[in-house]
Structures are given as C-alpha cells and as structure tokens.
C-alpha cells in the first residue's frame, strides 16, 4: 500500500496563502511604522523648533513693553523694548536660518521659506487706553518631506500707537541684504527715473590681488565680508518668472542643436538664474556688464554647466561653468572672461587684465518673497514697481 505521509496539494496551497497573507500584512505594518518614524522625526524636529522660536518671540512681546519696530535690512526687523532691550529678527534664506536676539534657528535641508510678510493696521481711531492697532509677521517654513506642510511662524501683536511706533520703510539704496551671514546691497539698473531694468544682489567679488585657494569648497563656501563670496546662497535666487518666454527663446535659438534645445528646455523646467557680471567696479547703469540666464546652480558641484539665452554688449556668454583643472574656477565658455581665479590675472570680456570682477544675481523674485521691510525706490514700494518692459515687479 502506498504511504501518503506528505502534505496534500490543497494543504500546501492553503498554508502558502496564509503565510503570504500574514507576511504581506506584517510587511505593510513594518513599512508604515518606518514611515511614521521618519515623518515623526522630521515633524517633531520642525515642531520643536517652531515652538521654541514662537515662545521666545511671544515671551518678549507679551511680557515687555514694545517701544518700536524698525527695519534693519530687507529681511530684518529690530524690536526695541521699554527696559532698553534691542533684538533683531533676521531671516537669512541663504543659509536657511531665522535669528531672533541671540537665538538662531536653522531649518533642515528639506524645508524652505515661503513668502514672508509683515502687515500692520493703524487705520482705526486712536484710543488713549487699550490697543488700537495690530501687526502680524508671517514667516512660513514649508517642508517638502511632509506634503508642503507649513511649520512657520505667524506672530500677531496688538499695540497702542501712542506707545509703540512701527517704521519698517527703507530706501533701496540703504537696505542691506544678509546672505549666508554676510551683508550686501541691492543694486539697480535704471531705465529712467520711474522704471528699472533689473534689481540685483552681489554674490561674489574677487580682486586681482586676492586669490582663492585651490580647493573647490574654499571657492564656493568662502563666507568672508572682505573676500566677498556668498555663492552658496545662489539657490535662493532661482527664478520662475517669464518661464515660457525663456523656453521660447531657447527653442528659437538657431545656434543650438535640437539636442541642446531639448536639454536646455528640460533643465529650465525647474527655474533658472538671471546672472550679471561686471569688471573694474563699472557702474551697472553704464551697460558695462554681461547679463544672461543660466540653468544650473554653480554652487552645486555636480551640475556646473550653463547656457545663455540673453546677453548684453553684443556678445553671447554661454554661462558660467566649473573648470576643475584650469586656473579659473568658472568662466564664460567661448570667451576670455573668468571669475574665481586661482592665480594669474582676471580677464574682462575683452580679454584684458582687470582689477576686479563681481557676480550679481537678479533679485526680483528674491525681494518679492523675502521682504520683511517696505523697501522703496523713489518713494514707491518696490513690490509695486513696474519694470521697463511693462511687467509688474512682483506677480
């Protein structure tokens, strides 16, 4: 007689189905636990930072007599309190920090600042006692990891305007911009007395006697007010305005191959940089500059290649590119010009030795996004300016 001691086919099938079901459920459980752990870690960190900074600011606003709020820069407000305390609230998108007094908060790499805003209302009838005005300061911190959830700060304060003064207006010429801890200024290219062609912020400067070291990080990450470089802040100047017209410029450019057009168009999908280069401290209004659009972030070592779509002075720079082995950290392809020289001379766009070179980034979107102060140009808030080409400064 045949010995049937093994499993039957149905037993094996049922067992296998059971084991598979349990394995899948347990795997899902483990995966969801992992997700909770990761999101919880990021979320807890962001919430802790949000809570600490909120408490820090509100403790002062609630317990001290607020005398004034004034501007100390594009993204900077000064709070003065009755007993003599003075504290600055500074947002530095370049190194992703918010500083209030002596407390500095750094947001993580997966988060970014949203549009900053300060609104105050003093239109109600004045009161001799009690609060007759209200100010709100909104600093959104958006997390890309957590479905673009906002972990920012919304500070509201009521006050009596006979006891507290708010003056956050500042002329553009005297408004500092803090980038990665270094103060720089806003530069304007005028079209006429009421229109501007462009608004720029200086990112990098090199003089002929001041060479950077041979190390890439020394060039990119050098933060020093004397040997001025805030190239690591470049990412905050990424622009998206007029995206379509720039793509059209690329696709109608006869000098580019079909492959180049396709590659450039794709790289522009995520935004672009509008950069300007000038030599020997030439005034920007003289037209003595290059102004071009570039796709890639030269502060990112892996993607150092740019293409021009617009230019000045009848020449066509192809953008900055990182030259690892040469004497120049970056140069404009096809031209003799260069920046970030390791040794030797700095050449201007005619190939002549220059005393200095400055790299600027167009700050139009930067100013629209990161202004805490009411920055004015000839008395008009720059957010309300109309550019020379008829476009609104901020869309």
């Amino acid at each position, binding site marked *: 007689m045949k010995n049937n001691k093994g499993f039957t086919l149905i037993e094996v099938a049922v067992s296998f189905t*059971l084991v598979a079901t349990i394995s899948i459920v347990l795997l899902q459980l483990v995966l969801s636990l992992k997700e909770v752990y990761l999101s*919880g870690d990021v979320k807890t960190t962001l919430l802790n930072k949000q809570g600490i900074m909120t408490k820090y600011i509100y403790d002062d606003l*609630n317990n001290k007599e607020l005398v004034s709020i004034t501007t100390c820069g594009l993204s900077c407000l000064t709070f003065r309190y009755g007993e003599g305390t003075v504290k600055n609230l500074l947002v530095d998108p370049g190194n992703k920090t918010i500083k209030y007094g002596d407390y500095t908060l750094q947001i993580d790499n997966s988060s970014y600042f949203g549009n900053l805003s300060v609104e105050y209302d003093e239109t*109600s009838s004045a009161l001799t006692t009690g609060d007759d005005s209200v100010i709100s300061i909104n600093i959104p911190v958006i997390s890309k990891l957590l479905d673009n959830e906002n972990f920012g700060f*919304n500070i509201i304060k*009521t006050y009596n305007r006979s006891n507290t003064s708010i003056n956050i207006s500042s002329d553009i010429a005297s408004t500092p911009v803090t980038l990665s801890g270094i103060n720089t200024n806003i530069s304007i290219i005028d079209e006429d007395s009421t229109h501007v062609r462009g608004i720029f912020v200086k990112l990098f400067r090199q003089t002929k006697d001041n060479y950077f070291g041979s190390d890439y990080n020394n060039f990119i990450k050098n933060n020093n007010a004397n040997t001025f470089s805030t190239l690591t802040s470049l990412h905050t100047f990424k622009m998206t305005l007029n995206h379509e017209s720039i793509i059209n410029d690329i696709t109608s450019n006869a000098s580019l191959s079909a492959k180049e057009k396709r590659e450039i168009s794709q790289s522009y999908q995520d935004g672009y940089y509008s950069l300007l280069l000038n030599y020997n401290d030439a005034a920007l209004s003289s037209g003595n500059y290059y102004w071009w659009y570039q796709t890639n972030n030269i502060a990112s070592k892996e993607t150092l290649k740019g293409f021009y779509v617009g230019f000045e002075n009848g020449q066509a720079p192809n953008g900055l590119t990182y030259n690892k082995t040469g004497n120049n950290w970056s140069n404009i392809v096809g031209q003799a010009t260069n920046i970030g020289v390791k040794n030797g001379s700095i050449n201007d766009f005619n190939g002549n030795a220059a005393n200095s070179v400055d790299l600027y980034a167009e700050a139009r979107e930067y100013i629209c996004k990161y202004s805490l102060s009411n920055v004015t140009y000839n008395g008009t808030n720059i957010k309300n300016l109309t550019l020379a080409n008829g476009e609104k400064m901020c869309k």
Partner: protein
Amino acid sequence: MKNKGFMLIETLIASTIILGALIFLFIQFSTIKRSYDNSFRYNTIPGLYSGKVLVDFISKNGYSSLDQNLSSSTKGYVLLNGKCTLGAWNLTETKICEKITSKMDASHILYVGNNISNLQNDLKNNNYDQNVFNTGFKKFVLSINSIEINQRRRIIVEYKNNTYAVIAIS
C-alpha cells in the same frame, strides 16, 4: 488509508485565530497612530500663542456682552470669527478684534462657557451646525474636558491648517 495532513476545520480555526490576532494588532496600531497624529494637531504651541492674543484682547476689553450672547444661545457657543460686534466693544476695539481673528488664520473661533457638556452632547447626538463642525473639529471639541476646573470661559479655535486649540480666558 492514513491521512495525517491538516483537516480543513483545523486550517480554518488556525487562520481565524491568526486573522483575529492581526485585526487586534491593526486596531491597536490605528488607535496609537490616531493619538500620535492628534498630538501634532491638538493645542500646538503656535496655536496656543496665537489664540492667546485674542484671549488677552477679550480679557482686557470685557466679555459681558459675549456672556449675554452665550446665555441666549441654544447652541452652547458664540461664533466669533468675523462677528466681533457680538462683543459690543467700541468701533476701534471691534475692528481690532476682527483684525486679530483674520490674522489668526482660523476657520472657526468659538466662545464657550466653563461647561461645554451641552455642546458635547449635541455633537454626540449629531445635533450641530455642519458648517461649523467638520469631523476633525467635532472630535477635538469632544476631547476637551467638559468643565473648566477654574470656572473660566474658553475660546476654541480651529485653524486653517487643521490644528486646534482651546484657551481659557483669565
């Protein structure tokens, strides 16, 4: 013939026990996950501080009119956002109150008394204004202690980012 394999009934019993254990685990895990999510949404620090601005305003400028409105309300709360005239403050104070409530970025702001058991009963019995209470807000109100131990009025805030806060008026 000797059949030493599992019988169908044995297999079914075993799988029922295993599935029961898994369902139990799932329910427990869901409860923990819900509590965990709520800890991020209930009484957040920014929510409490933001609400405190309104609470301080109400404390300074008086809430007797709000109390009158509350006592005549059958709902057990006074809806504050955009309706600061219910506080019967002067024109400037009313405008400041409205500014605060708009800057708070809140969906709904309720002024309630020290005892909200009637409101909570209405919510449990589905006798409530669905324009004011969505599922999340309803759950939050039901999670609050019915009676404020120091007999203080409270405001309950639902923020637009789906966080909630309850703050007592001192």
